[in-house]
């Protein structure tokens, strides 16, 4: 990546660097068949378009700098007419070829049914994931089994969002009043990051989520664990944290199954301790980040719908310990 800096390099020279475009959310860092197909399409389009572009620029350079014979006549004009006509014909053929390539890729992507269905609901600014068959919901973290197609039904609770996990598939919008769908399939186990791709207001930038693809056994284990209510408080401190959580405004917006907290405005926190990140991919889940987030969400994510709830430092520590214990 670094070597490319500095000059406007032609696309073709940059092409070998395309595989270098990796990262935790790269569309070229493929984890599933759909994204693989799309990477192939991106690469082939880039190669063809890059060659065409180079040819045009080379011709332009030649036209500017070529040595000019004395006198031009009707012959040049005729040759030019031929050259231009042929170039236009070539453009038409290339365009037709690329269109066909695009159609083929569309067909192979398909949509269709999945073996598993999950409902994803976009909310300002977090993701609600419902597993209808198991009857539980979670937030900002989607688990899928490797090698099986998962159909994600996409809905929105407020404005338009867009569901996008570049390493697994292209994006699809979530539009209020409509239901769209997307199929995901991961070929190798791993953690894939996704993010909202349609501008959805103040915290559009911090609306990420994680897709965890795992083998069937771990997936089943995870499903079973998530379907359970929250584990009972084991220590004195956790019990105190739970009490604070239930007595303070927290419980009015969040659900923790197995307790009296049944709010629905915010994410379900029943197993928040088991999730990799909090606040829609903003922070890694640790006791410290949980405390920081609870203490001052409006500084970390200005405009988020979670209010700043005044807590004493002791209450804060207890709540963080409690949330962390919700594995």
């Amino acid at each position, binding site marked *: 990546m670094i070597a490319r800096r500095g000059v406007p390099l032609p696309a073709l020279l940059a092409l070998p660097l395309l595989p270098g475009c990796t990262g935790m959310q790269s569309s070229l860092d493929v984890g599933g068949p759909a994204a693989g197909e799309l990477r192939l399409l991106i690469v082939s389009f880039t190669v063809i378009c890059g060659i065409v572009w180079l040819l045009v620029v080379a011709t332009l350079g030649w036209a500017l700098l070529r040595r000019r014979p004395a006198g031009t006549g009707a012959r040049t004009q005729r040759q030019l007419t031929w050259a231009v006509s042929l170039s236009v014909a070539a453009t038409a053929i290339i365009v037709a070829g690329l269109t066909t390539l695009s159609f083929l890729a569309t067909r192979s992507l398909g949509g269709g049914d999945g073996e598993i269905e999950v409902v994803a609901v976009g909310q300002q600014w977090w993701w609600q994931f419902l597993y209808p068959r198991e009857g539980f919901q979670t937030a900002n973290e989607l688990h899928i089994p490797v090698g099986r197609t998962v159909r994600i039904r996409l809905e929105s609770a407020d404005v338009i969002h867009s569901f996008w996990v570049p390493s697994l598939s292209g994006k699809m919008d979530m539009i209020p009043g409509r239901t769209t769908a997307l199929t995901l399939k991961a070929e190798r186990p791993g953690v894939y990051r996704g993010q909202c791709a349609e501008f959805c207001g103040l915290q559009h930038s911090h609306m990420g989520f994680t897709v965890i693809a795992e083998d069937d056994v771990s997936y089943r284990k995870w499903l079973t664990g998530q379907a359970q209510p929250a584990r009972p408080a084991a220590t004195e401190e956790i019990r105190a944290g739970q009490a604070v959580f239930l007595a*303070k*405004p927290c419980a009015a*917006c969040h659900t923790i199954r197995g307790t009296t907290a049944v709010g629905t*405005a915010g994410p379900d926190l029943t197993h928040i301790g088991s999730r990799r990140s909090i606040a829609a991919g903003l922070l890694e889940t640790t006791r410290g980040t949980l405390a920081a987030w609870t203490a001052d969400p409006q500084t970390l994510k200005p405009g988020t719908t979670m209010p*700043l709830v*005044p807590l004493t430092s002791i209450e804060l520590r207890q709540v963080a310990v409690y949330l962390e214990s919700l594995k």
Partner: protein
Amino acid sequence: MGSSGGRRRSGWSVASGTLSLCGVTLCCLACATALGWMRAPRQFRTDPPLQADLGNLRLLPNRIGGTPPESYFALGKPYEKVAYDLSQGKRLYTWFGCATCHGDGRGNIGPSFLDGWWLYGPEMISVAASIRDGRPHGMPAYRDRMTNDQIWQLAGYVRTIGAYGPSVSATARNDDPQTRPAENRGPASILFEQGPAGMKPEQGPSP
């Protein structure tokens, strides 16, 4: 081009006039932008001490009238007129299930906000106190379920439901099935029914 000297000069002076016009416009806009930049933007975060102070409702012994805390005035009474706070109040109205008892504002098992009869008076302080501390005959206290600024936001919104005139900052309709005119159109003036028939006897005696 014989007389071009004079024409050039006039050409340039018109051009310079245009340029200086642009320059003045640009400077004005730059100054305005600088001023706007210094102006406080929408407040998403209320400082904890301020938020604590916003809880100091100074109520009369009958818990109806009273005075909001000084900080409320110092802030410029934002919860009554800032569109953002009012719209947050509207979201809270939905999230906290106010519609269960108060419906779309026309009341259900709870009193209506549209009939012109405010059981505890129409002031912000009274509405905020009702939300925070609850009232007899079924209004629960939200003291432990909402933060102080959320209570103010909700109170501000509730008052716009009963507004008698169109308002610039009140919220517009939601993307939901419509049952009454939106708050920015003064629903109470459109749906007004002669009180006190609007007040239902089962809501209990007026205080």
